[in-house]
């Protein structure tokens, strides 16, 4: 497969939030007017430099994804203008999936209408839970009713592709709370749901609270029960699980995120954003000041850069492709020269194969990283 045959997406990292949630380890800054203005002009410069360098060789974008942070920390008109600039810079098509992430309390119905009119056709809300008592320990502001209101407003504004991010295994969350969250969501008729097992990242407030015994760490067994409850409940509701943490109504799998697991290519803009183009992985510096300084200097704000050999690309395609429930084609395994390891993992009950594909078993999904370690 030559690189130009791959799907191509654009990711824009908007590194601002009004507050940082206790579990969050992403690069972000607290939203304040000055840095946001500097970021905005630097981002425009970054797009301009990529256009000059023709980084994408004139190829069309299958997806555009505004993530964060909270992209809607920026004024929606600015987001709309940025999208217009991007579409003037790189070709898109009417089917291009264009996502914006939002915090339910950060958008009004008017804002959502502006975003929809600007061309965003998918919106992803950080719902996290539908039980108010879950919010305090993770430092998530807002209330469940804000989520409901925002999703309904998004529908009215014209979004029919709506994702809700959820977390399970939150401190104090019981299995029945989790099922309640799932049930409550259904009245909001999302098309896509992401269910993330709460993970304690080093250096976060939550990690500190656990060390100080203020909060109990997640219980692995309970999280496994919650995962299987979600899978069953969502299947009943017409959502199929297509990736370890992702569920979608038919034809609503996130095209942008699929790039990450199918050896697709992506260009990342904004501080800390990662890119994978022409077999090279590179990343932007995770610091707003350095990011803007570099761009003011007419330099792309790249930090590390890894050139992958053909076999490393195949290996990565295999390792990350296995996160998809449909697995990977057998030819990827051949190309990555991992037949022997695959046989061992099949023998251990972690992988399942048929004539065409290899995929994780349900046991394998519990130990997807163990499998990744064996195959890397």
């Amino acid at each position: 497969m030559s690189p130009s045959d791959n799907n191509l997406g654009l990711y824009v990292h908007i590194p601002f939030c009004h507050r940082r949630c206790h579990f969050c380890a992403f690069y972000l800054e607290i939203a304040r007017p000055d840095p946001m203005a500097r970021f905005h002009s630097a981002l425009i410069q970054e797009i301009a430099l990529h256009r000059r360098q023709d980084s994408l060789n004139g190829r069309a974008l299958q997806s555009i994804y505004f993530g964060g942070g909270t992209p809607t920390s920026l004024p929606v008109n600015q987001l709309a203008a940025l999208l217009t600039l991007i579409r003037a810079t790189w070709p898109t098509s009417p089917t291009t999936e264009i996502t914006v992430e939002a915090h339910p309390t950060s958008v009004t119905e008017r804002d959502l209408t502006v975003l929809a009119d600007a061309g965003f056709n998918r919106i992803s809300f950080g719902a996290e839970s539908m039980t108010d008592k879950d919010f305090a320990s993770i430092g998530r502001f807002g209330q469940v009713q804000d989520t409901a209101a925002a999703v309904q407003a998004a529908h009215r504004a014209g979004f029919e592709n709506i994702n809700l991010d959820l977390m399970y295994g939150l401190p104090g969350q019981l299995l029945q709370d989790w099922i309640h969250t799932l049930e409550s969501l259904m009245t909001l008729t999302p098309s896509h749901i992401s269910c993330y097992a709460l993970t304690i990242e080093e250096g976060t407030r939550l990690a500190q609270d656990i060390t100080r015994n203020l909060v109990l760490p997640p219980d692995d067994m309970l999280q496994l029960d919650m995962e299987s409850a979600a899978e069953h409940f969502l299947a009943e509701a017409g959502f199929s699980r297509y990736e370890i943490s992702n569920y979608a109504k038919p034809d609503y799998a996130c095209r942008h995120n699929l790039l990450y697991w199918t050896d697709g290519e992506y260009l990342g803009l904004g501080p800390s954003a990662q890119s994978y183009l022409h077999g090279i992985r590179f990343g932007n510096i995770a610091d707003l000041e350095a990011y803007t300084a570099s761009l003011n200097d007419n330099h792309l704000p790249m930090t590390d850069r890894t050139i992958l050999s053909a076999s490393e690309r195949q290996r990565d395609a295999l390792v990350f492709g296995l996160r998809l429930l449909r697995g990977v084609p057998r030819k990827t395994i051949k190309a990555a020269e991992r037949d022997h390891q695959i046989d061992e993992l099949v023998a251990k009950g972690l992988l399942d194969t048929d004539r065409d594909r290899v995929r994780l078993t349900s046991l394998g999904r519990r130990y997807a990283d163990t499998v990744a370690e064996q195959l890397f």
Partner: protein
Amino acid sequence: MQSLIRNFSIIAHIDHGKSTLADRFLEATGAVTAREAKEQILDAMDLERERGITIKAHAVAIRYKAQDGKTYALHLIDTPGHVDFTYEVSRSLAACEGALLLVDATQGVQAQTIANVNLAMANHLTIIPVINKIDLASSDIEGTKHSISEVLQLDAADALPISAKEGKGVPEVLEAIIARVPPPSGDPQAPFKALIFDSWFDNYQGVIVLARLVDGSIRPGMKIKVMSNNRTFEVMEVGQFTPKRTKKTELLTGEVGYLCANMREVADVKIGDTLTDAVLPTSAPFPGYKEVKPLVFCGLYPTDTGRYEDLRDALVKLRLNDSSFVYEPETSLALGFGFRCGFLGLLHMEIIQERLEREYNLTLLTTAPTVVYRLLTTKGEVLEVNNPSQLPPPSSIDSFEEPFILASIITPERYMGAILQLCQERRGIQKGLSFLDPTRVMISYELPLNEVILDFYDKLKSRTQGYASLDYEVLGYRNSDLVRLDILLNGEAVDALSFITHKDRSVQRGRQLAEKMKELIPRQMYEIAIQAAIGSKIVARETIGAMKKNVLAKCYGGDITRKRKLLEKQKEGKKRMKAVGSVEVPQEAFLAILKVGDE
């Protein structure tokens, strides 16, 4: 002329300035110009340089015009500087008539120095005390003289104060060598007889031997014989290192130099052996030759089982240069195909391992070091065992013996308690304790060698902040109440983890080891039971709980970057892992025994 030859060595503790003084001699005599003078010319190998110690002995011939107007041939024979190489040191000293005793004026006499001075006295050498580093503010010349005369029973009245670093006092040392060291005796008319004190393998010419001519002379074309094995060779080339290798037409009585004689293996010409004329052999070999026996053994396994042949090739090549280590193939149920290797001591073991990894690009898995045990079976056979897993069942062992050493430790007085404690913990029997001066004490202990090879030296260093010095001599075998402790992972004994320990400490050791293994083995998909057993009796048990899940929740752009870095790191770590049954065991776990016992 024999009367114009002086053969001498320098006895010094590590870092007391031996190499620097040797460099000054070469410069002072014009053998090397200052520009050519690389730091520490005699230490050729990288590893030696890095560790600041001299492993292989070397010999340099220097021409020196003395104040009496005559030109003398000075032969400086360098000696290895570590406790593991006592025999090599003794043979280098046997090739000399004199020795400079070089003592750091800021540190005084150290344990190893005492041992080497004793070796020099046993070889009837003239000893010239030299006090180095007098340029340093903290130097104590009088105190150092005092300790030389008290500790070493040497007359230190005319000890020479020098600064090798600044070159101060160096000419006086050269004159003292001429004046005090006797010229070599020996009969030029007698049949050729020479003492081998070093040899190494040269890719081009085969083995190069360093020898001291005792009687007669040698020139190319002569047939010579190695006395211990009666092998004969024709001499191809003789010469000296000046320090450049310089061919000569012959070597004469009393001289020190090299010879090449188409020898293929250093094992043919062992240190301490005697060379003689094959046609007119001497009747009396040079005394003191012995076969050096490895004291410490361990298993070496390639982590990549496909590289077994590469490891064997590397061992063959290394042994060309070092006949004092031995190896034989061995198979471990846990580790697959590898080699059991024997070394002179722990440092020697580390050096060989490091060279295998560095020079031959191998990644090795090492089992815990062990000594050679001797046991009497109920059938009356005597067995020597250098691998705990080869031990016969306890019911067929009548009695058990293990090697003991006499350790001499010199330490500042303030660490005395820590050292006595350490020696007691290691089943030591105190043999002596005396103050060398108001602040330093010499402690001697009889210790089982197996307790010493388990990180005794590291512990000694850490408990004394590096101030204690250690030397030892082997005393021989003694009866001991020993048992084998086995480690079982998920019910299966792991042969590479078995070790032999004293019965009184076995249960505690087993418990500590099981605890340590629990720390070192990462959690895996299934529960892992770690048990320590003596025979069929389980003495300790630990459990590593199963990892319930191992899966990243989010895996998008930035997550992929982080995950790839983590996977890279884990892949590196995996190279040092061995699958034992279904359990992945990291290298450190095979050496866990080195990490327990004192906490």
